[in-house]
């Protein structure tokens, strides 16, 4: 096995000291001279015509500098479907629609001004159920779109599902639903926009896509009639991302528009309530699944259809089927697959990427149904998964090429520990579920690339300028480790810059668990270029041939002894006639493929796998579920930093547990009823579970030092593992997330045939006991 000095070590995050001493600056902490404070007025109705917006009183308020309404701004359309203006005119389509924006001398004045704006609405019939929105008589959310169904047809059919269905010995057919959950980044959203006298724009903002945000902001400048000016995006420390910052939001563009009009910097900072109301949650789904296997338990087909509640506008939530296709076609070997998904406009909030990007929703249905099918076939649930496990060398029906694959090892690791050494007791049960996820980038755009520049100074200190974005996950640390290993220096010799588009190269963004793989490979390539030059120079200086030289610990070694300190060599290269600078750049774009018209294509250069096992206790009187033990086995290729890796798994798992049990954005007729941490029930340290991560290293040949992505997988199989454990414990199958005590209790009562089976949480009506 290769010996590494930095790779595979539990190294502290490079920004941990600043964060633990309060020095790290977040958007909350930024203030520019002359800065104004912006605030947004949101719609009072989920669907209404705007008759009049009267800003007179607000304008008269001392301290108010600028007020904008939908009529005051040029046509700007945000989002992947270009259907979302930053300020609405004519009509509002959801309660989070932006109707007006104010910039004032201080936040309180801005707030007061917002209260003084009088909007006259004419309420319109609204639609909140995506399946209802499909009906011809449903009100149209966008009249000019002619239909509520987005023109994004997601259908694939590989093999012959109907033929396989006839062939199958055992079948299951089920309906599952998931609802809105939201990122709950601890640091709320915010942006500062600053336009200089030459109309160059600087935006300080929390974003996971600095390069793409730059382009979006450029578009807004263009709409204002400004062309060919610089747009600079500066990223402060970010208080959590989880996918929420993969698009630009109206508030960022409103900060720009306000700053443009006021000719002063404008900051918009969300309060917590606004963060809940006006950022986009995870895409909810209604899923129909049928699946069948032969007598031996081999999966023969999987047939899934979904209706997605798109909300009133379109961001990345609508494209989550592109990633759902991966588990649907490729989690376990399944030769015949069919999938269709419709995204439907409603007057609800619109959705966004969130850790797992559709994968948790799809995997909830698949892995719940796998347990049901195993039971129908009378095959042990672990064995059933083993029989169907993906293997290295597989090409799945969608054309995903499985290279390294540790799924069998993950299943083994979990099954060995699934009883957690505990005897079986009443009300206690265990469950497991697996996952596949992109681990080698994901070609969503034409490019899946990332750039890196590296410069080394006289003393062996290294500046790395990366396109990658860190929002707490440790991208900067992993990149520092990769570069340090390659250049034979220490992590503390490395400074990673990722905060500023003026100095950092291009990247498509921190999504799809791609950063370690793509930005890591990009940094590795740049470092390698310098390394080769250093070796050549050192060989020349020492007379030792390059292949006998080892670069590590800030020196060149020959036959185990240091013979030339690295700084000395670097200085000599500067202080020599015709000297050279140690600088290099690299653009890495993985060898993955865009999906074709039939949605086939190897979207990632490699895939990550994992299996989770959980032991739960169900209180049969209250329906409350307690998690007793949790184990999470992941095939990560190679753990570059086991400590950060554990952190991703622990955090992902708890987010998954929240998704499974407690979290939901409650919308009542399109209005958020729980926009605060009291009623949006994130788990606390007292509820937090004891989760044990197990790392399976398969050393992927394409990954930087063998690594694959692990950012998202932790929260993917959690919900089905828990649902399966609840079934094992008390014999009830919950098909709708979150699995709240009232749902569990109602199911238990129903099963026991009790007189009162409680209320159906969906219909809000008494449900009959069977």
């Amino acid at each position, binding site marked *: 096995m290769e010996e590494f000095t930095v790779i595979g070590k539990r190294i502290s995050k490079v920004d941990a000291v600043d964060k633990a001493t309060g020095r790290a600056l977040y958007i909350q902490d930024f203030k520019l001279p002359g800065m104004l404070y912006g605030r947004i007025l949101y719609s009072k109705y989920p669907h209404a015509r705007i008759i009049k917006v009267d800003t007179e009183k607000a304008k008269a308020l001392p301290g108010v500098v600028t007020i904008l309404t939908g009529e005051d701004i040029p046509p700007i359309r945000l989002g992947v479907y270009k259907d979302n203006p930053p300020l609405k005119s004519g009509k509002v389509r959801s309660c989070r629609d932006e109707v007006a924006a104010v910039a004032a001398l201080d936040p309180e004045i801005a707030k007061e001004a917002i209260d003084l704006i009088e909007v006259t609405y004419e309420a319109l019939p609204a639609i909140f159920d995506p399946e209802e929105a499909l009906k011809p008589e449903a009100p149209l959310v966008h009249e000019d779109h002619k239909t509520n169904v987005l023109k994004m047809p997601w259908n694939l059919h590989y093999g012959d599902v109907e033929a396989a269905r006839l062939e199958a010995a055992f079948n299951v057919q089920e309906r599952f639903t998931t609802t809105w959950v939201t990122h709950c980044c601890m640091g709320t959203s915010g942006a500062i926009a600053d336009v200089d006298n030459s109309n160059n724009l600087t935006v300080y903002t929390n974003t996971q896509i600095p390069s793409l945000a730059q382009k979006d902001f450029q578009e807004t400048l263009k709409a204002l009639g400004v062309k060919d000016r610089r747009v600079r995006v500066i990223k402060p420390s970010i208080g959590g991302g989880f996918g929420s910052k993969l698009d630009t939001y109206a508030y960022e563009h409103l900060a720009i528009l306000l700053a443009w009009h006021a000719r002063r910097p404008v900051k918009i900072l969300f309060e917590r309530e606004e963060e809940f109301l006006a950022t986009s949650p995870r895409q909810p789904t209604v899923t129909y699944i049928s699946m069948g296997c032969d007598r031996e338990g081999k999966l023969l087909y999987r047939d899934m259809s979904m209706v997605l509640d798109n909300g009133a506008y379109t961001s990345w939530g609508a494209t989550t089927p592109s990633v759902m296709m991966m588990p649907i076609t490729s989690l376990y070997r399944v030769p015949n697959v069919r999938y269709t998904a419709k995204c439907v406009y409603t007057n609800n909030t619109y959705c966004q990427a969130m850790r797992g990007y559709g994968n948790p929703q799809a995997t909830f249905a698949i892995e719940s149904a796998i347990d049901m099918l195993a039971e129908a076939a009378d095959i042990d649930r672990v064995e059933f998964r083993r029989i169907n496990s993906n293997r290295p060398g597989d090409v799945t029906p969608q054309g995903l090429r499985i290279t390294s694959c540790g799924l069998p090892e993950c299943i083994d690791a979990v099954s060995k520990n699934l009883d957690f050494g505990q005897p079986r007791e009443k009300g206690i049960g265990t469950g497991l579920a697996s996952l596949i996820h992109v681990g080698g980038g994901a070609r969503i755009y034409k490019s899946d690339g990332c750039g890196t520049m590296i410069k080394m100074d006289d003393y062996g200190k290294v500046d790395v300028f990366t396109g990658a974005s860190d929002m707490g996950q440790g991208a900067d640390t992993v990149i520092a480790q990769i570069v340090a290993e390659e250049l034979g220096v220490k992590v503390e010799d490395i400074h990673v810059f990722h905060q500023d588009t003026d100095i950092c190269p291009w990247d498509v963004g921190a999504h799809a668990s791609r950063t370690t793989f793509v930005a890591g490979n990009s940094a590795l390539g740049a470092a390698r270029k310098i390394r080769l030059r250093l070796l050549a120079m050192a060989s020349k200086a020492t007379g030792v041939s390059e292949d006998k030289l080892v670069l590590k610990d800030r020196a060149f070694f020959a036959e185990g002894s240091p013979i030339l300190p690295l700084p000395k060599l670097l200085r000599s290269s500067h202080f020599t006639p015709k000297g050279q600078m140690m600088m290099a750049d690299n653009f890495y774009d993985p060898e993955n493929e865009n999906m074709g018209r039939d949605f086939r294509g190897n979207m990632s250069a490699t895939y990550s796998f994992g299996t989770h096992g959980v032991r739960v206790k169900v209180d049969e009187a209250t329906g*409350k579920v307690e998690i007793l033990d949790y184990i999470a086995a992941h095939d990560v290729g190679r753990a570059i930093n086991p400590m950060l890796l554990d952190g991703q798994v622990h955090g992902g798992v708890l987010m998954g547990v929240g998704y499974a049990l407690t979290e939901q954005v409650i919308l009542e007729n399109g209005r958020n*009823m*729980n926009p605060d941490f009291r009623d949006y029930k994130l788990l*606390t340290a007292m509820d937090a579970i004891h989760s044990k991560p197990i790392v399976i290293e398969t050393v992927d040949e394409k990954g930087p030092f063998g690594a694959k992505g692990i950012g998202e997988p932790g929260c993917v199989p959690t919900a089905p593992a828990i649902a399966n454990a609840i079934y094992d414990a008390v014999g009830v199958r919950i098909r709708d997330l979150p699995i709240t*005590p009232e749902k569990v209790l109602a199911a238990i009562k129903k099963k026991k045939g009790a007189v009162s089976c409680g209320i159906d949480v969906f219909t809000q009506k008494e449900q009959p006991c069977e």
Partner: protein
Amino acid sequence: MRLPPFTYNRPQDLDEALELLNAYGKDCKILAGGTDLLVRMKQGLVAPMNLISLKALSELAEIRETATDLKIGAAAKLSDILAYQPVQGRWPGLFESIKAIGAPSIQHFSGTIGGNLCQDNRCQFYNQSRSFRRARQTCNKAGGSTCFAWKGGSDKCHSVCQSDTAPILIAMGAKVVIKSRQETRAIPLEELYSSIGEHPLTLGDNEMLTEILVPVRAPGDGSAFEKLAYRSAIDYAVVSAGAFVQTDGNQMLKASLVIGAVARGPLTIATIEKTLEDRPVGDEQAIDEAAKEAMNAAEAFMANNMTQPVEYRTQMVSVITKRALKLATKRALSNKEVSEAK
């Protein structure tokens, strides 16, 4: 989130505080820990012109035991009550109820027992920001004339009392001392609550709660507090119950039960005293009957004032009642030596 403007007063003794209270009358709120009041002020639910801080009134923070009562000053910090040694052993129900409030580092070092008892009622349609509320008609509690929590609307406010300490203290027969500049009165804690959602306390504008008197324990009595919440911390109860029983080792002599988080005030289930009286200890059927009575009593008050479904909360009244009564009984049985221990 910024607070609205007010004047801040920090009286140095109780007389000064009562004097100020008398002078300000309606335009004034008492600031203890601030964990309830300041949030409501930030949301624009209340905008008192004047605040009277209890910060300097150490006389209101005392905790001591006399021959007849455990006396707790209204401004005693929750953390100080938990740390007061006798509480955990002798008033376990009270100890449990305080532990169940919020989370240690949020409320316990700031929050006071008086604040917990005097907190305002809550409702998912009321405890929201101004912009949330502006999108609807003004509800009864906010000075309007409708109730969103009551099916079909109501001319009454159907908010819910979420004090965790009130149910157990009432069940144990606690009294409270209420003072104004003019007079001092001691009333059963129960009578502090008006059961009127709009203004859930019976305190006059010039009055303040100064002390809580919890009767000392007698041999054969036991108390318990049960709270069902979705999380282990920072959560309001779905249902809570305070139970107090007195046994002679074989039979129930006395029992009282108060349900929290279901009605406009702590809900005393008066009928269970008769139901349980003279029944053998450990009589499951008796407990079942009591639980059913509690559930039926609670059902009449249940409104859609929390995010959890009404039907589930109603069912849970029975479950939590049983648990509280059983635990209190168990404690009563192991409590023969209380008088000796003293």
